[in-house]
């Protein structure tokens, strides 16, 4: 059994490919069912956001598992062959897969490091997987751990502050251009997470007029509703730019969407009223030449970050701190996963019962000092026989179930019944006493996730 991840993200694939692979929420269940129907795939969870599509799975064999998942991804979109996908995909297994999930959850792999939305998206994906019983003991643990690691990173580093303060910096800059934001109009181009966050910040600071444009008109409409604004057709937003005072661009397109001429024209239409353009896209969506246009003020993500750094007055490499946390936490999960191996469990069980037997025998034989050697032998034989019969079924079941989908659950149960766990293992187990029912009661599980956090936090701070 191996944990693997196959996927692509904003770092490896252009938006055109990501869009094609993205699985809408309504079809998530169906996709998960299909994923689990592949032979050798025991557990699976599908994470689909505008910046990444990833499949985390527990598979019997690594190589064939990779193949199946890639097939699954290609099947999601008929116009894409498996080969076409290859250059954009990444494959990780074991520790690296877990570490990848942790980094994603902690927003270390995000376009804007520290943005918080990814954590919510992972929780949602996990909930859907639980509802469709796609995950089992291993992924349940690992994903929950990922969520708690993300929370730990958020509370113990200032990485989240970074993303929030980028929006804050944008608003603060806007206030140096416009004295009264309530009369201003924000045009949101694209639905990048950071841009949405910034838009919310602007609304919180009094902006009342919001216009939204996205490539997908339906999505634009939904966003516009959420912000209490109006949707603009993507094809004509450039003509519409003049009506906006603040333009937030974050589309994930690989080229410039807004040129110097576009802005020059808009400023002219606005009779030289200043325009504030914020480009939160990587790569850039607004031509940097816009800087030369009078009365247009362009700031990109690096400018905003620089402003944040300056605000703080000190340079803290919060991301590095977070990376170290991820490494620690992966170590803990690795220990737990190792404990799920059958052979070491059988050895541990054997040792455990032998220890008990030895201790009890020593106690009893110490009191019966005048037994003959034969009698001593008989007593010892009886003890061994009781112990062996008691654990016989457990041993047989463990060996028999080693390759079944519930093997890990049996190992886990055996470890619990016979107190075979070590501290690291019990830490991961934490709140998971009702594990076998996890798939049937998703709500409870999510609550478990909430509970896990403080415990993990205090535990690790003891080290």
């Amino acid at each position: 059994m191996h944990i693997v991840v196959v996927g692509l993200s904003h770092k490896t694939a252009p938006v055109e490919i990501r869009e094609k692979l993205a699985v809408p929420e309504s079809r998530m269940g169906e996709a998960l069912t299909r994923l689990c129907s592949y032979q050798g795939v025991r557990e699976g969870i599908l994470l689909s956001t505008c910046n990444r599509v990833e499949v985390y799975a527990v598979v019997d064999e690594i190589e064939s598992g990779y193949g199946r998942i890639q097939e699954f991804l290609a099947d999601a979109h008929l116009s894409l062959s498996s080969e076409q996908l290859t250059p954009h995909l990444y494959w990780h297994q074991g520790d690296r897969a877990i570490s990848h999930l942790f980094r994603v959850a902690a927003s270390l792999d995000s376009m804007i490091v520290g943005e918080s939305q990814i954590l919510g998206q992972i929780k949602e994906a996990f909930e859907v997987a639980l509802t469709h019983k796609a995950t089992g003991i291993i992924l349940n643990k690992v994903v929950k751990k990922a969520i708690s690691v993300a929370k730990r990173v958020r509370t113990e580093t200032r990485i989240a502050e970074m993303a929030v303060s980028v929006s804050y910096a944008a608003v603060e800059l806007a206030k140096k251009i416009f004295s009264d934001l309530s009369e201003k109009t924000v045009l949101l181009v694209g639905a990048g997470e950071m841009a949405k966050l910034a838009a919310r910040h602007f609304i919180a600071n009094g902006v009342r007029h919001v216009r939204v444009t996205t490539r997908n008109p339906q999505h634009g409409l939904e966003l516009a509703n959420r912000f209490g604004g109006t949707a603009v057709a993507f094809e004509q937003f450039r003509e519409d730019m003049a009506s906006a005072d603040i333009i937030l661009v974050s589309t994930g397109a690989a080229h410039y969407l807004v040129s110097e001429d576009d802005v020059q024209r808009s400023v002219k239409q606005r009779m030289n009223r200043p325009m504030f353009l914020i480009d939160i896209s990587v790569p850039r969506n607004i031509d940097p030449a816009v800087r030369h246009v009078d009365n247009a003020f362009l700031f990109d993500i690096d400018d905003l970050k620089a402003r944040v750094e300056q605000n703080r007055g000190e340079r803290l490499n919060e991301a590095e701190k977070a990376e170290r946390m991820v490494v620690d936490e992966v170590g803990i999960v690795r220990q737990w996963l190792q404990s799920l191996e059958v052979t070491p469990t059988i050895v541990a069980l054997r040792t455990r019962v032998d220890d008990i037997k030895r201790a009890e025998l020593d106690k009893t034989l110490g009191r019966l000092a005048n037994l003959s050697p034969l009698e001593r032998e008989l007593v010892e034989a009886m003890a061994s026989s009781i112990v062996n019969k008691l654990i016989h079924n457990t041993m047989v079941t463990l060996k028999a179930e080693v390759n079944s989908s519930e093997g890990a659950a049996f190992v886990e149960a055996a470890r619990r019944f016979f107190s075979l766990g070590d501290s690291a293992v019990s830490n991961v187990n934490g709140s998971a006493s009702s594990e076998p029912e996890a798939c049937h009661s998703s709500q409870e599980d999510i609550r478990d996730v909430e509970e896990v956090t403080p415990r993990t936090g205090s535990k690790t701070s003891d080290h």
Partner: protein
Amino acid sequence: MAAMFFVVTMVLYFAATVSYLAYLLWPSEALSKVSLGVTAIGFASHTIALVARMVRATDVSPPGFHEALSFFSWMLILVFLAVEFRHRLHVLGSFIVPLALVSLVSAAALPETAPTLTPVFRTLWVHVTLSMLGTVGFAIAFVAGVMYLIQDGLLKSKRFNVLYSKLPALDFLDHLNQQSIVTGFPLLTLGIITGALSAEFSRGSYLNWNPEQTWALVTWVFYFAVLMGRLTVGWRAKRAAYLTIIGFAGVILTLIGVVLKSHGPVS
């Protein structure tokens, strides 16, 4: 008494100027309070000096450039205090108070009466007051323009220094620029009309195209164009800032020209 208060005012405005310039470069906000206090005391002293001068003045002692400049300086501070009171715009003091000081020092360099402008009539008081009020408007517009260009430059070059944090929003400065011209322009217009009337009384012609009259008209036409350009073809923001700076430079040149002509070079 007027002379004594005049000197006290000058000293206080000088202190306020130093304090306000330090405020511009210092991250702390505390200096603005000190500066404002000193300015307010200076203003009170200035008011006393002006009142004392007026009480002493008779119908036959008309206002000269000394009085005009002193009055101009007083008006600048008055408008500044009003704007500061309403918008809490401390940084405006760093620009206006030095200007008021320069104006007051120039007044001090001139004799208290204008010998060449006799005979004059009461209308001259009205003419000088209106023209000076108009000029105060243009001075505020000039200051707003300078502040606009500084803030624009800081934003464009992404230099977020102390000055950046203290200067107000661009559109506020642009609005201040517009309001100042909208207020100053009609006052200047009235000032020119009353000037023409008093010229008619004193010299028998409304307009005899002497240099200061010509310059006054050029200034009027210039600001008229600036105002119209803003309202019709969008001469606002950076362009408006440049235009008002140029316009005010013209006003100053006119003033210097008139003064030199009246008194000869101040040596």
